[in-house]
């Protein structure tokens, strides 16, 4: 561990990734292997897994037991819920959302992938690209996952590995390009998670493959936290007003920058009111910043004593979005109870929660063959569709394909409070169909 996690390294970048794949393609084993090979598993954890494996009558430690932590998962030998795993190399630290492959847990794949900058999709080399692979790739395209890795697992178990790998890669490339990914954002790697081939160590059993190992790739792939496609978007979370002798007149607007950057002196517009003012200062508890980019939590001090409260958005005037009261959105329905037109729900977008009425169900997206059914009567659990929504208070949103943070929302059950849907503002399904993902 000490060689891989040099304590002096303070400038390591954080990369958020997720896994996806179907049942029994070895996802938990691959994750166990990633942790093991980056020396992120310690002796007592290995001991615990070894003990549990012996108890189950196994000859070798089952690395998947490192990650399947719930009683029900260990009983059934499957992954039920998203688990978060952590590993590090000298250049990067990784937060990995390990998601279940079962169709009924697609909602967990959606959860895990919503924050991922990269997803490792697994296929079994013996089965190749199957319908579940297509389904997952479609969901990942919809969620705007920037980078994909196809891990062609169990490559040691096929007879003509070179041909098999080439053919799976070609099929996958065709699929991902039809879903809108650029070819440089998609990489295929032949691996054996069980034996560790091409995970951390280059395998001499795959001479036909000249690319990086999985870990080399994860370590070196350039990823922007959030591409700069739009100007400043700053959803106001909380108004900081100390009202103390020392800070009697202090009034700061706290939040996490959702897109773009801010520099003191910038002119900004407060939405939805449309009031204009200037940023005087960017405060943090550690001192002032001369610039702040997307992802950073800061407090903005404005020039004028304007009316700003939680739920408002501070934006750059040059490309400020129009506050919208009615819009089309793509939703992934995550609840047992189906969605019907006319449903009255709560919509949480950024720091604003408002009442919403679902107008019509415009179309249902069939992830298996990437087609759409017009005017469905309902959206059932795990189904993805386009709906129209009307909100009581306008929201300040960008198209999801332009910005994941300002383009995403939740639909919430006003009665029980449960999260019912993941929502994406804009006409994303059409973009997916046309292969024009921006």
């Amino acid at each position, binding site marked *: *561990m*000490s060689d891989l*996690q*040099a*304590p002096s390294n*303070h*400038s390591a*970048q*954080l990369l958020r990734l997720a896994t996806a794949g179907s049942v029994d393609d070895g996802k938990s084993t691959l994750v166990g292997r990633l942790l093991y090979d980056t020396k992120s598993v*310690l*002796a*007592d954890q290995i*001991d*615990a897994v070894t003990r549990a494996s012996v108890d189950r009558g196994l000859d070798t430690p089952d690395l998947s037991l490192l*990650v399947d932590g*719930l009683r*029900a998962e260990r009983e059934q030998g499957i992954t039920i*819920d*998203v*688990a*978060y*795993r*952590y590993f*590090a190399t000298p250049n990067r*630290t990784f*937060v990995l959302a390990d998601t279940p492959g079962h169709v009924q847990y697609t*909602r967990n794949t959606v*959860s895990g992938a*919503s*924050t991922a900058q990269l997803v490792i999709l697994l296929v079994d080399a013996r089965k190749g690209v199957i319908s579940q692979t297509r389904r997952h790739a479609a969901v990942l395209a919809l969620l705007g996952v920037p980078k994909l890795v196809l891990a062609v697992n169990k490559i040691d178990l096929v007879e003509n590995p070179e041909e098999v790998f080439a053919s799976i890669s070609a099929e996958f490339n065709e699929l991902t390009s039809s879903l809108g990914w650029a070819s440089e954002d998609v990489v295929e790697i032949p691996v054996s998670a069980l034996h560790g081939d091409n995970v951390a160590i280059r395998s001499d059993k795959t001479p036909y493959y000249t690319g990086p190992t999985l870990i080399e790739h994860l370590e070196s792939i350039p990823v922007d936290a959030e591409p700069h496609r739009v100007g400043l978007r700053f959803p106001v*979370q*909380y108004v900081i007003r100390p009202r*103390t002798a*020392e800070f009697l007149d*202090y009034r700061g607007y*706290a*939040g*996490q920058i959702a897109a773009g950057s801010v520099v003191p002196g910038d002119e900004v517009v407060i939405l939805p009111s449309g009031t204009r003012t200037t940023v005087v200062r*960017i405060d*943090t*508890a*550690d*001192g*002032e*910043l*001369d*610039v702040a980019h997307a992802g*950073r*939590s800061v407090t903005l001090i404005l020039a004028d004593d304007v009316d700003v409260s939680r739920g408002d958005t501070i934006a750059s005037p040059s490309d400020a979005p129009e506050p919208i009261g009615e819009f089309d959105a793509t939703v992934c329905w995550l609840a047992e109870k189906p969605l019907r037109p006319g449903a009255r729900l*709560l919509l*949480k977008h*950024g*720091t604003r929660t408002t009442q919403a009425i679902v107008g019509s169900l415009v179309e249902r997206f069939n992830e298996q063959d990437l087609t759409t059914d017009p005017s469905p009567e309902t959206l059932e659990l795990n189904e993805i569709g386009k709906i129209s929504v009307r909100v009581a208070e306008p929201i300040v949103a960008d198209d999801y394909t332009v910005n994941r*943070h300002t383009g995403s929302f*939740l639909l*919430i059950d006003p009665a029980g*409070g*449960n*999260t019912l849907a*993941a929502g994406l503002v804009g006409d994303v399904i059409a973009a997916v169909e046309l292969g024009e993902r921006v």
Partner: protein
Amino acid sequence: MTIELTPTALTPSRPQLDGTQFDTLDALESEAIHIFREVAGEFERPVILFSGGKDSTVLLHLAIKAFWPAPVPFTLLHVDTGHNLQEVLDFRDHVVAKYNLRLQVASVEEYLADGRLTERPDGIRNPLQTVPLLDSIAENRFDAVFGGARRDEERARAKERIFSLRNSFGQWDPKKQRPELWNLYNGRHSPGEQVRVFPLSNFTELDIWRYIARDNIELASIYYAHQRPVYQRDGMWMTPGVWGGPTEGEELQTLSVRYRTVGDGSTTGAVLSEASDNEAILAEVAASRLTERGATRGDDRVSEAAMEDRKREGYF
């Protein structure tokens, strides 16, 4: 909310920062601050669980940063098992005074004294914390309860959401967790239910130590190597105290040790160490072949799913 308090400004350690630099610690810090502010914006009566341990000290540090220069708009709650090390209690009180915070203490000792709880045969008090914790939450109508738990600590915690809904019994149902999407946290709950909130979810033990070193966060003294009379039990170096020990065959020796986690004196052990500053500890943690819990926490050794079982009962 707490206008009667005087804010204590943190000493700016990095004035006029270069805003372009944004590393792992910056990302984790920004995420935690965002979570604190969401809770302040959406809940009526949040509370921070504060034990005086390193994770809750980092948690409090982040809370102070999130609302600076205003005071932290939350109360602190400590569930005192009666088996805590005195240095940790002293540190707890020191921090509360230093930042002018409000502290409530729920005492396991009181519950044992009046018969609401019964001492376990093994003398371990960590599991007994659940009842005073839940009572305190109910009495104060706390609706959001911050904890310093990290997902890297344990397999069951790896499955935990950042906003974790608990029923009126404080119970966690891992199969009924809400999906957590983007950074949109859903804090809706019915009366009687509460949300446990974990801003440090994505920190690892090493991140915590790097962050402590970077921000120069003051910690309880027992985290740093010091001479202490200890005896060995189950491979851990235990401190003698009201919880009993040493017993026959356990020899008291004065050694250079430090604690990696702070919990109950009866279940938490020290490790042999010469690391007396953050730099030395970072090197030691990075080189360790044992997890902090595996090395020094007896309560996680009970069964394969000990943590999950305790969480189901209302523990963290």
